[in-house]
């Protein structure tokens, strides 16, 4: 009897304890679901990716209630795609927690010689569904199915700012060209590097030593190289008049062909086609440092009196300029490569900084039409400075419309 009473007392205490616990014993004993399953994302929809070539869509959704709230156990979202609503859906990618969109884009129909399953066909309907993912490989149910097509776009709306800027600048150029043709005389500030060209060629003539013209290690299509051809033309014309030898070692065959034509015509215009030799413009090598070795060798063997460096330059700029300095040459440089400008400024006698290289043709020829384009550049810079000033003031006042206006979304 005593044992029975003791058992009943213990059972009563156990039931009392269980009854006061947070989780009812029945629930603990009957819970077989494991970790909690996150809720699915909702309102899934698919839209064309704007400003593309028609091989991309954007899948958007409303975040799962358990993403950053609720159970807060969502780690990301998995996106699935199919050709038909009832077809087999294949995994295409995932977005991390807090993301409410996924960009599905692929414009390669063939990859590694086989059809690319990720390829998005233009104007074909694709079906998507999304599910939430929690730790331990726990996934929600798939969302409802959404469909959409990739559409080819014929204008890049993110580049409107560039278009407007180019049109304004183009109209300035045309306006000042017409002004120049009408006889308007524009003032341009003198550039020491340009003014020194004649003296440098004269020095070489007096010393009876050749002139070296280096067009850099860019390609014939680079704007700086094209500006270099323009200066080469003027320099070659003067060397033809003074009968001074000019050497143009190049690192690209196309550059060699253009430089030969430029120098040949300059000699023709100077009335001295008889002293033009194609070997004055020589192809050395396409490799950067072997080219440097070749040019340095020419400087030291020929003892060039004047060296011009006009074009695109990289790490070789200082090696060339210092070798020229050792050889005792007068050196005039010009490049649009900002990282190389300090080297040229430190090691050469005169440097055309950035846009001055492009402006050199107008300075050297003094043709009103070319000088007119310099005025257009000045106006362009004035507008830029004004926009910068107004934009800085407005941003300080938390007004960002100038910044938004000039932001390019590519």
């Amino acid at each position, binding site marked *: 009897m005593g044992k029975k009473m003791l058992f009943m007392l213990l059972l009563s205490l156990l039931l009392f304890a269980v009854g006061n616990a947070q989780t009812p014993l029945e629930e603990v004993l009957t819970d077989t679901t494991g970790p909690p399953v996150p809720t699915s994302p909702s309102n899934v929809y698919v839209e064309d990716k704007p400003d593309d070539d028609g*091989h991309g869509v954007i899948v958007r959704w409303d975040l799962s209630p358990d993403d950053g709230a609720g159970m807060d156990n969502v780690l990301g979202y998995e996106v699935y795609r199919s050709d038909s609503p009832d077809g087999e859906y294949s995994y295409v990618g995932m977005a991390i927690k807090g993301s409410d969109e996924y960009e599905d884009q692929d414009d390669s129909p063939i990859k590694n010689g086989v059809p690319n399953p990720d390829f998005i066909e233009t104007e074909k309907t694709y079906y998507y569904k999304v599910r939430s993912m929690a730790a331990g490989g726990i996934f929600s149910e798939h969302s409802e199915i959404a469909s959409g097509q990739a559409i080819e776009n014929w204008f890049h709306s993110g580049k409107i700012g560039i278009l407007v800027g180019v049109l304004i*600048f183009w109209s300035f150029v045309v306006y000042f060209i017409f002004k120049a043709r009408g006889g308007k005389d524009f003032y341009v500030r003198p550039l020491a590097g340009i003014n020194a060209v004649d003296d440098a060629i004269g020095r070489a003539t007096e010393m009876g030593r050749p002139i070296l013209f280096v067009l850099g290690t860019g390609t014939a299509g680079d704007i700086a190289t094209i500006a270099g051809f*323009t200066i080469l033309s003027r320099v070659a014309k003067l060397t033809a008049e003074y009968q001074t030898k000019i050497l143009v070692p190049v690192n690209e065959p196309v550059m060699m062909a253009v430089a030969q034509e430029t120098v040949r015509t300059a000699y023709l215009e100077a009335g001295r086609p008889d002293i033009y030799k194609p070997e004055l413009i020589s192809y050395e090598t396409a490799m950067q440092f072997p080219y440097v070795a070749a040019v340095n060798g020419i400087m030291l063997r020929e003892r060039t009196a004047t060296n011009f460096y006009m074009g695109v330059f990289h*790490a070789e700029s200082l090696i060339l300029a210092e070798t020229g300095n050792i050889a005792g040459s007068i050196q005039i440089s010009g490049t649009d490569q900002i990282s190389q*400008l300090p080297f040229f400024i430190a090691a050469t006698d005169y440097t055309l900084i*950035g846009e001055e290289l492009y402006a050199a043709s107008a300075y050297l020829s003094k043709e009103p039409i070319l000088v007119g384009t310099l005025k257009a*550049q000045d106006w362009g810079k004035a507008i830029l400075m004004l926009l910068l000033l107004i934009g800085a003031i407005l941003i300080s006042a938390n007004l960002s419309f100038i910044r938004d206006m000039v932001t390019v979304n590519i």
Partner: protein
Amino acid sequence: MRKQIPIYFVFGSGIIMIVQYFIPSEESDWLFTYANDWVIVVGIFALALGIWSLLRSEFRKLKDPKERFYAAVLLFGFFIMIFTGLKAENLEAGSLMFDIFENVLIPIQATIFSLLAFYVASAAYRAFRARTVLATILLLTAFIIMARLLPLGPISEVNQYGVAWILAIPNMAAKRAITMGVGLGAIATCIKIILGIERTYLGHD
């Protein structure tokens, strides 16, 4: 006519490429790729001209006692690389051509590149001579920037602020100003070329 056709061609292709930039369609991409492929094709044709020019020049130098040695070395290297690289398998690791490339050409290039270290010192010495007010400012600025790598105790922290200010404010302002000028200058040059105002790249004014 010889002068006019290239100018019309440049105008047409220039306008087409400008329009192409604003069109993101597949056809536009194809046009861009096609135009760039032509650049490669022209480059390949020009390569033959380049090699011809190089060989002609170097063979001529063989007659000059002063230039003979360099020309002989160049021609030897030129023909060795051609003959060792004639077969596709000779381009693989372990082949003679690959070994020459790895063990001769690359070390020579590295040697030329290493000259830069010495030339930086000599150019910096000349640039930093405080002969004018501007050169003195340059010297002081360079000193502050270089001093950030030195352990200067409590001064280091102050110096870091100075360096950060120099790099982020005056240095960045100058770089951006040059970049904007370069951008405008490049557009102006392109417009001049497209409109046929600038034509020295064609070999005439």
